């Protein structure tokens, strides 16, 4: 049943070509269908789905547990919102394919399978990043993504050659027993590819040119949706299967990436690129806290990830449609923009504050002062340019040089969703417990390899 | 009633002896310049003459300024102990007197600038800057004294001195610094920039016609009386009323003699001077006091 999540979007993706006039409707309908299936299957959580009834070790299997459930629901929720918001349906085909690939990526329990989904996501994101004819940026992304993805392939094949099977649980268990050294090198190879998508600085050098191209669609799709899925895969690989730390080089590069991308954002004079750098910084913060491999820190990292993805969605949509807007004549959009940017910075009554608060509290409990100081310093720099941009847009000079601003305010649909997510941020800000229990559950599930393995060995089939 | 009598006593002494000593001062300056100089009661005549003339006023702030100036200085005067003759025995705290004194200065400054004449503003700006100059070393030296005797009550210090000798011998450097600052406070010759007659047409007093000039001269006399009596109380010890007046006269004559022969500092030179030599001496004094001289 859960395989429908992958099959339906893929099938209908190419059905849009003949049904030209229905194209606008197919994307939202499909995503809605996904959500319905997802919530219908909620009670069957914790099952393996063997494709073509081949048993776990040999066949390709999907694994549907709570972690996958929450990530899938978040991804598809965002996709639903995106599909309702985008007005140009040129990208409906790649979006559908990407949706299928994303669902597959989260569900799959198979190395090569995850490589294939990863590659499909990569290709579709290359296509989407050509919005607002940013061909050069997308080409650079393509070349770099291509080079980086070979590592994942090599890692997957190594795991197969040593472990004898492509199934994640099996091979990591066997290799973990035989020679953990190889497990570590494989994880490093996986990490290199995933960090490209996770926008950590040396790997995420392509982000500003792609995100900053001024379109509303690319940064939201790539920034909020794809990165969240990649975080799922990265945490699954680095936390569940391997119980040693990645080599320290990664930790220091990520720390440096947080501060440097904030500095990059501080320098920017263009709002789009500033937001691009900001999303790089927040994603590197999430990765940094994942690398610490402590359960409390990981749960707060996920809390921070979800609130940040929501806030970035609002910021990018407003910038995509209005450019540097004059909020005096777009009051509600302005309020939504300010709410989410303040939540990004961590002002008390918004969700972002609890994200940072729990993160710092967990870090201090683990005596990890270095990352705490880095987070505080990066928030300080972020505070500076976020305030600058807020004030710039609230108190913009009346007579803008480029004549009358063409799109004064967001169209109704987008304004509705932007306001909705700003209010969600406010609600979570007032009652953080709602999201925190979920993320604690996720973190706890991510850490016990035992449960993950028993289900496979216990052969619970569909 | 005894308090009213004492207050009246202080005020009348200040009025009478203030003006007489000023007359004597003018005679001494004249003598230095080898001429006879006016009779000792010349200042009385000057003040009373101005009070009989018909002058002009520049609006209510000008009048209010002059009255506030005179009133402030009179109020300060009532708290100053003259030797052992004190209007309010316990209340003559040094800081209260210094800051009540500034009420008069501020009133005068506000009144004069209220006339609208830029000469007055320049004069007042110079007066305030000069005050910044001499006030810092003066307060440092006096507070070192207060720290030494562990009290900021002037009359108690007067009694202590009558017991174990004048402070001028125990704190010679302090006395020197205080005297230099006194010269600045009195507005006597080396530090006369604020009321320089030739440069800025006698500074703040440029628009003072008739009675306002008289009232301001009275205020000036009372100010000098307060400044010198504080110096005498703190450094030349106790003794009864007449001894106090004698010491007052000697200090006054000494100040006049210095002012009769010296030219006038430029205002920034004065501040520069005050913040180098007296401040350094004040610090030596403080070091001695703290080191338990």
């Amino acid at each position: 049943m859960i395989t429908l999540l992958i099959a339906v979007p893929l099938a209908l993706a190419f059905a849009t070509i003949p049904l030209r006039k229905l194209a606008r409707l197919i994307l939202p309908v499909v995503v809605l269908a996904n959500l319905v299936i997802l919530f219908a299957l909620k009670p069957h959580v914790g099952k393996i789905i063997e494709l073509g009834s081949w048993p776990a070790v040999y066949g390709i299997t999907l694994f549907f547990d709570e972690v996958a459930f929450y990530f899938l629901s978040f991804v598809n929720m965002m996709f639903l919102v995106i599909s309702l918001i985008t007005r140009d349906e040129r990208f409906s085909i790649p979006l559908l394919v990407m949706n299928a690939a994303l669902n597959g990526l989260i569900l799959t329990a198979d190395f090569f399978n995850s490589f294939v989904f990863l590659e499909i996501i990569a290709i579709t994101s290359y296509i989407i990043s050509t919005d607002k004819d940013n061909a050069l940026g997308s080409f650079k992304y393509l070349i770099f993504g291509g080079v980086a993805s070979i590592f994942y392939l090599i890692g997957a094949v190594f795991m197969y050659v040593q472990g004898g099977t492509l199934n994640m649980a099996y091979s990591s268990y066997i290799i973990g027993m035989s020679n953990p050294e190889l497990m570590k090198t494989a994880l490093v190879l996986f990490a290199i590819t995933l960090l490209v998508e996770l926008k950590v600085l040396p790997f995420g050098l392509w982000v500003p040119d792609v995100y900053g191209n001024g379109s509303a669609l690319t940064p939201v799709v790539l920034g909020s949706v794809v990165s969240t899925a990649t975080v799922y895969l990265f945490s699954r690989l680095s936390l569940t299967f391997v119980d040693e730390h990645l080599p320290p080089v990664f930790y220091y590069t990520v720390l440096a990436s947080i501060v440097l991308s904030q500095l990059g954002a501080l320098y920017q004079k263009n709002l789009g690129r500033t937001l691009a750098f900001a999303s790089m910084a927040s994603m590197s913060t999430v990765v940094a806290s994942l690398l610490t491999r402590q359960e409390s820190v990981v749960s707060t990292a996920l809390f921070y990830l979800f609130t940040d993805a929501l806030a970035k969605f609002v910021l990018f949509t407003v910038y995509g449609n209005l450019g540097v807007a004059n909020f005096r004549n777009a009051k509600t959009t302005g309020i939504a923009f300010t709410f989410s940017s303040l939540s990004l910075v961590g002002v008390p009554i918004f969700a972002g504050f609890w994200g940072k608060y729990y993160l710092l509290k967990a870090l201090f409990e683990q005596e990890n002062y270095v990352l705490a100081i880095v987070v505080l310093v990066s928030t300080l720099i972020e505070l500076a340019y976020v305030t600058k941009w807020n004030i710039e847009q609230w108190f913009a000079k009346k007579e803008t040089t480029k004549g009358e601003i063409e799109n004064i305010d967001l169209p109704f649909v987008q304004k509705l969703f932007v306001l909705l997510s700003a209010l969600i941020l406010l609600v979570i800000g007032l009652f953080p417990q709602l999201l925190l229990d979920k993320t604690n559950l996720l973190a706890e599930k991510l850490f016990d390899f035992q449960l993950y393995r028993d289900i496979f060995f216990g052969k619970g089939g569909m | 009633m005894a308090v009213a009598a004492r207050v009246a006593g202080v005020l009348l002494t200040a009025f009478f002896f203030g003006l007489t000593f000023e007359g004597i001062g003018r005679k001494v300056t004249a003598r230095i310049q080898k001429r006879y100089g006016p009779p000792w009661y010349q200042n009385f005549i000057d003040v009373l003459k101005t009070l009989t003339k018909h002058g002009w006023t520049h609006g209510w702030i000008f009048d209010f300024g002059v009255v506030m100036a005179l009133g402030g200085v009179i109020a300060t005067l009532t708290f100053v102990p003259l030797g052992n003759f004190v209007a309010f025995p316990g209340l003559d705290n040094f800081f209260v007197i210094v800051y009540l004194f500034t009420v008069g200065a501020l009133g005068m400054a506000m009144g004069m600038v209220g006339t609208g004449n830029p000469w007055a503003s320049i004069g007042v700006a110079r007066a305030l800057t000069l005050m910044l100059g001499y006030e810092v070393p003066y307060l440092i030296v006096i507070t070192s004294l207060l720290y030494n005797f562990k009290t900021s009550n002037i009359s108690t210090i007067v009694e202590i001195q009558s017991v174990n000798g004048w402070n001028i011998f125990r704190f010679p450097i302090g006395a020197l610094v205080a005297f230099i600052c006194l010269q600045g406070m009195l507005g006597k010759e080396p530090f006369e920039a604020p009321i320089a007659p030739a440069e800025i047409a006698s500074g703040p007093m440029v628009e003072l016609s008739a009675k306002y000039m008289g009232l301001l001269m009275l205020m000036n006399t009372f100010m000098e009386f307060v400044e010198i009596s504080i110096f005498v109380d703190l450094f030349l010890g106790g003794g009864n009323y007449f001894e106090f007046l004698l010491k007052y006269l000697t200090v006054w004559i000494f100040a006049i003699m210095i002012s009769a022969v010296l030219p006038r500092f430029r205002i920034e030179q004065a501040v520069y001077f005050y913040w180098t030599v007296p401040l350094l001496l004040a610090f030596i004094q403080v070091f001695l006091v703290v080191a338990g001289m």
Partner: protein
Amino acid sequence: MLYDLSEMFREALSVPYYYLPLFLVSVGIYGIVSQRNLFKQLVSLGLIDTGVNILIISLGYIQGMEAPIYSAVTPIAKFVDPLPQALVLTAIVIGVGVLGLGATLLIKIHERYGTLELDELKFSKEHQRWQEIMDDEGDVGV
């Protein structure tokens, strides 16, 4: 003669299996880093893909076994490990997809900037205009 040529050829080739892919990948990476022409970068990306595919296939190779083509002549038992070869198939397909997309992007870039040379690209007016958008100074400087 023909035979010993292939023999001699075989000794020359009896180097470890990962020399060729390593060589191909390093040429590809050098190609991307050094070339100033975008199209050449795309070609070197293709090179890297092929290098990796060869690596995967050589991993699955068992000495003296036959290619896993299921025909009457070859018995079941004498096959090399067929799975890496299956993986390679998909990898090749993906490589084709990526390269195809890269080529279309190059056409788009050429239409817009008029050149594919990186040096000329930098000074094209299109790039300048894009640069100006990047730094229109908001009047609030931090």
